[in-house]
């Protein structure tokens, strides 16, 4: 990653921002579905809804984090396997 130039760095930063926005939208959707009853007698969030939203957001971020960690671990493992197979194939060609 050391050789990324300025334009590429900007690309990565933009992408990160875009994905954060996407994550935020998905989270909003989820927590609305999970916590807000579609009845609009009262314009305020009731106490239960407010507490539910707090927990929903916290849990969503944590699940996102945990899944990300496992995803990284799995893709690293995959990469290692591919490298091993490539090395084996090169050995056979010699």
């Amino acid at each position, binding site marked *: *990653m*050391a*050789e*990324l130039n300025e334009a*590429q760095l900007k*690309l*990565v930063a933009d*992408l990160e921002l*875009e*994905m954060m926005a*996407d*994550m935020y939208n*998905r*989270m909003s*959707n*989820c927590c609305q*579905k*999970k*916590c807000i009853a579609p009845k609009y007698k009262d314009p305020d969030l009731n106490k239960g809804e407010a*507490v*539910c939203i*707090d*927990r*929903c957001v*916290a*849990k*969503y971020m*944590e*699940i*996102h984090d*945990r*899944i*990300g960690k*496992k*995803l990284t671990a*799995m893709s690293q493992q995959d990469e290692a396997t591919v490298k091993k197979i490539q090395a084996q194939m090169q050995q056979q060609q010699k």
Partner: protein
Amino acid sequence: MAGLGPTTHIDVESTSRQFREFLSSYNKLTEMCFMDCINDFTSRKISNAEDTCALNCMEKYMKMTQRISQRFQESQLLSTDAAGPTVQNLKSAVQ
């Protein structure tokens, strides 16, 4: 990434497209597994059952997409009529 020398324009483009696809599937994955696995908002803590469910959900999804793309590729290969020698080799490898 080190030691690759100057990267070409196409390289950067395809890598960033891949990266974008990876990230958006990551987001989709979180949403899906969260919706299916997290139903208890009486506690802020993620329970063991929720954790296992979410991680299994993710692993299963990955395996599913892998299998789908594998089968799709196979059917694409097999249905290609203009099959050169490399495709023929792959065909026999599949069978």
